[in-house]
């Protein structure tokens, strides 16, 4: 294992674990019926929604090579399939990969 890659992995792991660990330490004094728990619950859902929206609108990695139109079309069709299949998670997820590959070649 080269030293640079090994150290990069360790540093990334520490940066990730610190947030998880601090979250658990803070949880000790938080009751599930408290206002602060309810507030953090809203923040957690909103943060995840922000992360997902950013991944689709301003992606990093290979997705950034796909056009905005193709990404939005895939999201739109996937959500349509999700509702048409009575909120089944698997169909839209699997089909989205095929839709992405196809729309990327035509749009």
């Amino acid at each position, binding site marked *: 294992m080269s030293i*640079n*890659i*090994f150290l*990069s*992995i*360790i*540093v*990334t*792991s*520490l*940066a*990730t*674990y*610190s*947030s*998880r660990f*601090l*979250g*658990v330490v*803070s*949880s000790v004094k938080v009751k599930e019926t*408290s*206002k602060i*728990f*309810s*507030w953090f619950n*809203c*923040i*957690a*859902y*909103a*943060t*995840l*929604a*922000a992360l*997902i*929206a*950013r991944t*689709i609108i*301003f992606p*990093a*990695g*290979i997705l950034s090579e*796909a056009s905005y139109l193709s990404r939005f079309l*895939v*999201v739109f069709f996937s*959500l349509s399939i*999700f509702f048409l299949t009575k*909120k*089944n*998670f*698997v169909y*839209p*997820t*699997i089909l*989205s*990969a*095929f839709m992405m*590959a196809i729309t*990327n070649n035509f749009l």
Partner: protein
Amino acid sequence: MIKKEFFLKGYKSILKADSPAIALGCCFIAIGALLKNIGFNINESVFSTMIIYALPGSLVMAESILVGASLLSIFISVWFVNVRLYPMAVSLFPLMMDEGQPKWKYYLSCHFIAVSAWLIMKSNYEQIEKKDRVDFWIGIGTATWSVSIAATILGFYLADYLNKDMLMGLAILNPIYFTCMMVGSMKSIKISLSIILGAILGPIFYFISPEWSILLGGLVAGTISYLIGKKEKINVN
């Protein structure tokens, strides 16, 4: 020690028909292929998934290595991307805190906090008594973690056979799966508003500060939704 019954119940939650295992696995296949392409060997790829276990963090690390960033810069960038795990932990661990359980279970199992395991736990915790929830959570976490490790190995060895279209298809799976899961979680005004406002404000804040956009978007959207939800509850009562 960990109660086998609840651990297995949690572990088996990824075998359900609407399990995140497929989406999660596909995303880590893409990560495995990416890590091979930037020069990781198989040991490094597996080791990174095992001890990082957070997709955005791994992506940031890979991009930083590619541009030759310093270790300090990697730490700060990853911390910004993964600081969202803090509110996720605070909104999950109070649900399973029990005085009869040893602390090490909580400190070790917090490593499993990731979107997929968090959403599975949030949808199922009410079926389990509070004193046994941490064992159930360790089962869920171990299952999603093992899928990620197996998929990284698969992705590493498939890297030479995956073309650009296939990698793009794999990369969209996770955001789509999480979008559907989030839409499926919209069962109260507070949560629905949090998700809608977060999805709007996150990208808007990106224009102000790309590093802080997720956290700021989440904080502002979550606080507005909490206050509106609270007001709504008072009006109903």
